[in-house]
């Protein structure tokens, strides 16, 4: 039963100390996400959706609460173990692509494998990932030689290359025009269908959210239950 849930979060809170003031970003969020599900996280700015994504993506630890990602109790892990989890279980896609400017598409996609330790056929796997996003003829191009859509495809390939349990996309189409944005979203949904990778999209665009199987609405650090 528990094997079906890739994300099991119970009563997550997160407080930030801003000088004298304590800011509450998450006030007790619980959520469950099934393996292979496509989930959108929506909410106005300041609602805590970025914080939630950071915690679900193991970039940050919650102040309190329990979080089990693909069977691992994340809140008990140290820095190195967190880095390892991010490397093996999470793929990130950012609004601003975040590619290394001086490195080729192949090099960028290979990067997570290089932090993974001893992985055979790094180049081969990176090439396969690039092929799966339709960039097999852009392998040795640098990000500056690629269009925005192509750059985001490289980022998607990078997120996929280590076969993660979940892909976290933070406003993946925010920097793209609507046509290219639609293509990128299509690509993500196709990959979800073909590979069964869980997809979590943080967005404030209702059109994108409508493509998800489920929407989690956040407001003031809490999940709004009434949708």
């Amino acid at each position: 039963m528990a094997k079906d849930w890739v994300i099991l979060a119970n009563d997550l809170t997160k407080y930030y100390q801003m000088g004298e003031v304590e800011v509450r970003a998450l006030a007790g969020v619980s959520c469950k996400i099934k393996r292979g599900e496509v989930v959108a996280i929506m909410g106005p700015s300041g609602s805590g959706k970025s914080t939630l994504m950071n915690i679900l993506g193991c970039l940050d630890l919650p102040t309190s609460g329990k979080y089990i990602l693909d069977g691992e109790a994340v809140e008990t892990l140290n820095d190195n173990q967190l880095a390892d989890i991010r490397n093996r279980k999470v793929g990130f896609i950012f609004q601003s692509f975040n590619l290394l400017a001086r490195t080729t598409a192949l090099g960028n996609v290979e990067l997570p494998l290089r932090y993974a330790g001893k992985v055979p056929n790094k180049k081969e796997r990176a090439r396969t990932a690039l092929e799966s996003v339709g960039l097999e003829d852009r392998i040795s191009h640098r990000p500056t030689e690629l269009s925005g859509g192509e750059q985001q495809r490289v980022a998607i390939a990078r997120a996929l290359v280590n076969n993660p349990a979940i892909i976290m996309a933070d406003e993946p189409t925010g920097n793209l025009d609507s046509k290219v944005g639609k293509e990128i979203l299509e690509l993500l949904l196709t990959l979800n269908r073909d590979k069964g990778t869980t997809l979590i999209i943080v967005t404030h665009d209702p059109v994108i959210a409508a493509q998800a199987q489920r929407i989690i609405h956040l407001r003031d650090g809490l999940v709004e239950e009434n949708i």
Partner: protein
Amino acid sequence: MNIGQSIIEALETLNGNKLRSGLTILGIVIGVGAVIAMLAIGQGAQDTITGAISGIGTNLLFVSSGNQIQEVRNPKPLTLGDAQAIADPFAAPDVLAVAPIIQGRDDITAGGQTMSVSVTGTTPEYFIMQNYSLLEGDFLTLDNLQGNASAVVIGPGVADKLFSRRNGVVGETIRINGQPFRVVGLLQSKGGGTFGSQDNQVIVPFTTAQTRLIHRSALNEVDQLYVQAVSTQAVPLATDEVKQILRQRHRTPVGVDDFTVFSQADFLSIAQTVTGVFTIFLGGIAGISLLVGGIGIMNIMLVSVTERTREIGLRKALGARKRDILIQFLIESSMLSLIGGMIGILLGWFLGFIVGRIAAASGNPFNPAISLNAILLATLFSLAVGLFFGIYPANRAAGLEPVEALRYE
């Protein structure tokens, strides 16, 4: 992460910022270049000095009055009697010859020319000990010595100055301190020695110098005794014999000696100590510029860490551990210093070469020597500088929180 790949990546990163990397490297180049050049010059000076000392013969002993290490009251002067006692083959079987020396400075004149030279009064043995050879004429003879002769052997520098020629000067008369002396021999040039030029000197019989030129308070007092041992191996034995004889004659069989015996090896070790200190001193001063270069590395690495905060955040999001980031930045800083170090070695070699050329042009041939040790030392030291000054920036990069680093604009 694989080290080879990290090095390639670091070089690519540095290559992306050519001017900045170049200027940072320049700081190390100057530092390492200065250290290498100074060590080379120090080594060259040491080689030249020890070479000059080695040239004075390995079987010579120098005896002088007084004690350079401990204080003695009323040291007795060395006398001609001491010289004769040491020359006794039964008392000192390992001593081949003894030459007493008295030295002073006097004005000499000839043909309206005047110059101030070192005047040495000694015995015929001296010429053999010093390995002198003649351009013309003869060395001083025993007859000259016993006859209190007004004979003089002159150095080539003296001939140049007084006669403007180096042939046919034997038979000429020169005046030392106003008294006429007949030139009997002209020495071949030996060049500048460690103890001043040997070309600008005149040598007269000991007896003549003692009675007419150089006055000493005690009867038959000499400044120094040159003692030649029968062989290089016999130097320690000869030293003991000389000491034994002098202790007896000076009535200091127990207690502190009132004379000092120096061998060439002693001179050599003193000269090496002095030039060694000199080299360390020069190298230390040059090391300061290397330190400044290191601070340059640290500065630029700190800028780089700030500039690449987002990149660091991204790498952490992709699974880089603290250690990975730390190693990445340490490799970058040590690449900077290693490249600088290698170019610096070339620069140092070039500087040493120039100094050698200048020295040769000004008449003091001198070979700056770059040893393999100096190169290894400079390479390792520059690498260490890069690592040391890279640690703080790299630590700062590795300690960044991924969330905050990713959010950084």
